[in-house]
């Protein structure tokens, strides 16, 4: 990957759900550079989560390309795909639902390492402990189960799980929307630190423009599956071009 290539690039990504008439994602194109944060905003149901799931390989798009470090994910064979999956991870909105209730935190954190055959028993244990410290948790959480933690802690565990494979891109799909404002601030701080220390890029999806303002370098607005605007955060919040973006900004203020 050359210096100018963006980390992630979507080209004309389109997606339609089987039962529905309307297209969920309509020829969306944008790119994210390494170490930066793109805030993807829009009303609920606009298609933001569908884009996230298409990037993660959870839904198959109808057409378009998704380039990661210059290679189209949709054309990869299973070995390349497995390697790519380690580099892109996702954090969901509902922290409680994103952790497997019957598995201990240790099992949850070890699963990606075991699945991708990263390291051996010793190095894996050391790694998950290091990552727990990074997200601000003690090693004594390992033997416990998700329901024993608050939603803020659960979200930290979800972030830890996302970090074990050393990703370069994290997708945060409304990752702070379900959290109290003080916990939200802590998680956002965590994201900023991760970006500073590890150079992780973020695709930050949220319906809340104020949160996006705190954390994003670039902003993209999705409306009914289409990309309306894609500019730097400063120029967006200084005065957006599109009428819909203006109305979003107005109703949020």
């Amino acid at each position, binding site marked *: 990957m050359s210096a100018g290539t963006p980390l992630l690039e979507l080209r004309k990504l389109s997606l339609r759900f089987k039962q529905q008439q309307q297209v969920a994602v309509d020829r969306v194109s944008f790119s994210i550079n390494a170490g930066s944060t793109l805030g993807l905003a829009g009303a609920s149901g606009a298609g933001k989560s569908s884009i996230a799931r298409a990037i993660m390989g959870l839904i198959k798009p109808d057409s378009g390309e998704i380039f990661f470090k210059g290679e189209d994910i949709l054309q990869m064979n299973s070995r390349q795909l497995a390697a790519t999956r380690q580099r892109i991870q996702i954090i969901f909105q509902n922290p409680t639902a994103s952790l*497997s209730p019957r598995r201990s935190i240790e099992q949850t954190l070890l699963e*990606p390492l075991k699945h991708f055959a990263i390291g051996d028993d010793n190095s894996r244990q050391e790694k998950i402990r290091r990552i727990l410290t990074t997200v601000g948790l003690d090693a004594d959480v390992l033997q416990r189960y998700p329901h024993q933690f608050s939603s803020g802690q659960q979200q930290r565990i979800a972030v830890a799980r996302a970090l074990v494979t050393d990703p370069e891109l994290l997708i945060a799909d409304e990752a702070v929307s379900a959290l109290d404002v003080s916990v939200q601030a802590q998680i956002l701080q965590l994201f900023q630190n991760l970006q500073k220390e590890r150079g992780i890029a973020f695709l930050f999806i949220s319906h809340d423009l104020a949160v996006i303002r705190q954390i994003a370098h670039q902003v993209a607005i999705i409306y009914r599956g289409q990309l309306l605007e894609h500019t730097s955060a400063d120029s967006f919040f200084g005065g957006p071009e599109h009428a819909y973006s203006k109305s979003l900004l107005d109703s949020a203020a």
Partner: protein
Amino acid sequence: MRQNAWGRLKSDRYGMGGLIIVAVFAAIAVCVWSGLLGQSWSEVSGERWESAGLAHWFGTNLLGQDILQRTLFGTATAFEVGLIVTIMSTILGTTMGALAGWYSHGWPDEIILWLTGVLDSIPFYLFAAAIAFALQGKPWAMHLAMIITFWTTTARIIRGEVMRLKQREYVEAARAIGLPGLTTVFRHVLPNTYHILLVQATIVFVAAINTEVILSFLGLGIQDGVSWGLMLAESSLEVLSGHFGNFIAAGTSLFVLLMGFNLLADALQDALDTRGTSA
């Protein structure tokens, strides 16, 4: 969490009562299987229709066989049928239900649903009779008939749960790292259905015992050995001449054991229920 469920169960007096009843009967069954009790169930050891006394605590039946011995052996029969049918139908039902739920609206689901529909529409006792006839008196004909028809309820319940849980983000997270479908189902989804399975298994156990009684009454049931159903069948003739030994022994045992199971199943459902909300 598991400690909490046990704690809740412990504090439910009816549930604990049920558990004790079931445990006592289970202990009797184990004793029979290990040759400690009920071994002389077929021996003609007394006069016919002796009333309850020191030699024969429950009296004797038409042939002079000891009713107590036969009742004890019947306990083992009930548990044997219960366990075999429950375990096999639960395994079969869970597997089919998991497949149908995971691939819902796909062809595995369509086939399995069609199969459950067909099996459920066959009148059970006709079906059992047909199987018993086809297998010409083989001892496991009755078990097979029950397993083939009982798995459908479990399958439907598991299918529903799997369909519900596969939308959860933790399942998406597993898929997101590329975990194969079947691994995801067995590692992440099914463990969250255990509480439902446990209660359903208790219900199937009761149904199996009930069904064995009726089948034996009809002569389609157990061939070698004695069961409470057979004893009840015998008693239908004896009662007319005023001999209630068989009836009381088998009927009371059946009633007490089923009551115990029902109390236990109810209590289990309550004790395990709050777990369900976290899944």
